[in-house]
């Protein structure tokens, strides 16, 4: 069975696909198996963006997930669409900067993080996705921070190493904000 399956959703341009890619690639670096599935199509900035990630120790069957264990919602429409599908006992991570309504579920755990505000304080709102990744990893330590750092170093090679460092800071900031907000799933 999958160690983790996740749907991340938001507006195009918020870095949804990148969030999933960093998570999946970090899992592969740690010797796990992972699938990353984008919503693809005539997508545009401000439209919808969705990605599905499955991480497992062994063979992964379906890369298509109808009932994820974890949802990362970066806007209200994504929360409305996907929150009802999260498995009971699962986890919903919400960017509280973007979504003011509550999660209408009593059988899932909810982590609310002011991701956009926190990313802005770190110097760039575009790192809100990494704040949410940090919040996810604090609640479900499916990959190590070290593996995430290696992926970010690979994604932002010199002369952009400052971007890698800033993104790592966003991840660790998200982890700190998330701690205590939810119990680890296992």
């Amino acid at each position, binding site marked *: 069975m999958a160690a983790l399956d996740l749907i991340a959703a938001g507006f195009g341009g918020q870095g949804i696909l990148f969030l999933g890619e960093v998570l999946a690639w970090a899992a592969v*670096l740690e010797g796990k198996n*992972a*699938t*990353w599935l984008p919503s693809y*199509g005539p997508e545009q900035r401000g439209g919808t963006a969705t990605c599905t990630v499955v991480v497992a120790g062994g063979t992964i069957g*379906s890369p*298509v997930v*109808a009932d994820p264990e974890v949802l990362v919602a970066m806007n209200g429409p994504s929360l409305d669409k996907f929150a009802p599908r999260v498995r009971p006992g699962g986890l919903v991570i919400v960017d509280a900067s973007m979504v003011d309504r509550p999660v209408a579920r009593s059988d899932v755990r909810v982590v609310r993080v002011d991701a956009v505000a926190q990313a802005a304080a770190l110097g760039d709102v575009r790192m809100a996705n990494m704040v949410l990744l940090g919040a996810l990893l604090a609640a479900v330590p499916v990959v190590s921070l070290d593996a995430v750092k290696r992926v970010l170093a690979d994604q932002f090679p010199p002369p952009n190493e400052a971007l890698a460092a800033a993104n790592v800071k966003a991840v660790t900031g998200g982890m700190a904000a998330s701690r205590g907000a939810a119990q680890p799933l296992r």
Partner: protein
Amino acid sequence: MMPAFTKGNEAIAESAIRAGLRAYFGYPVTPQSELPEYLARRLPERGGVFLQAESEIAAINMVYGAGARVMISTSGPGFSLMQEGLSYLVGAEVPCVVVDMMRGGPGLGNIAPAQGDYFQATKSAGHGDGRLLVLAPWSVQEACDLTRVAFDLADRYRNPVAILGDGLLGQMMEPVVLPAPVEPARDVAWATTGAGSGPARVITSLDLEPEALEARNRRLQEKYRRAQQEVRWEGYRLDDADVAVVAYGISARIARTAVDRARDEGVAAGLVRPITLFPFPSQAVRDVASRVRIVLVTELSAGQMVEDVRLAADGRVPVRFYGRFGGMVSTPPEILDQIEQAASEVRAA
């Protein structure tokens, strides 16, 4: 060796280069455009020719003249445009690899994943009595591995070989271990490569005398009989199964998870996954159909491979079908529900 983490389209492209690809001709179409995009950058670096033609029709006719290891890739609308050229390639016995990353149809349809080109790929390469050999990977790793196989089969049988994927397989990323590059030893005594002295080489599919054309067709049919030895398929949890799901490509991935969930609920389900669609693993399906109580075929189509499954099962067991299409993708809970319905159908019988 550390795996790469890459899209199906790009894995096929890199694997093709490592299989000795010397020429690529194509025309962009979603959801396979990452494949030519990758080759446009990488193939010339490694000494090959990349050419974006003015249309799919032009591209497939360029393939006809390549002589070297050659590939073309497209999706449904482009695959339709290539049918005439593929028929010529089959008739003239010119090897090539053609990739079809299927999308919703018919017509322009949409760009979401589908499996509606099964008939077109497996039943006929364009007009006439020709066939493609057809391989159907279900993962990025297998897409990479079968690309190497496709080039080898194309050379061995002097016949076009299709890799039949779908938009989901092309777009998704998975870890993949790439094979080491090879310089293939090829018999190209047939190729019109300007070999100098010796008998003239003619590549043609034209035989005005019916006797000659019948002889050519007998040769092709004999080749397809020999190709039966290339059948590939995989079984999963079939040993004590009551319900056998038959699915290929991405549908088989979804079905595999549904089979596991069915087992968790005490339903004895298993999976038959054809890897070659032509030649179709008819004997394997027949054997499984003799052991189980019901067969469930699931595809991202209105029901195409199911016809081959029914022929193979030959009335031994009921064969149910469940399909999503038009770019809609089935999910594990949907397939689980179908497995449960199939199981209750045989319990009631």
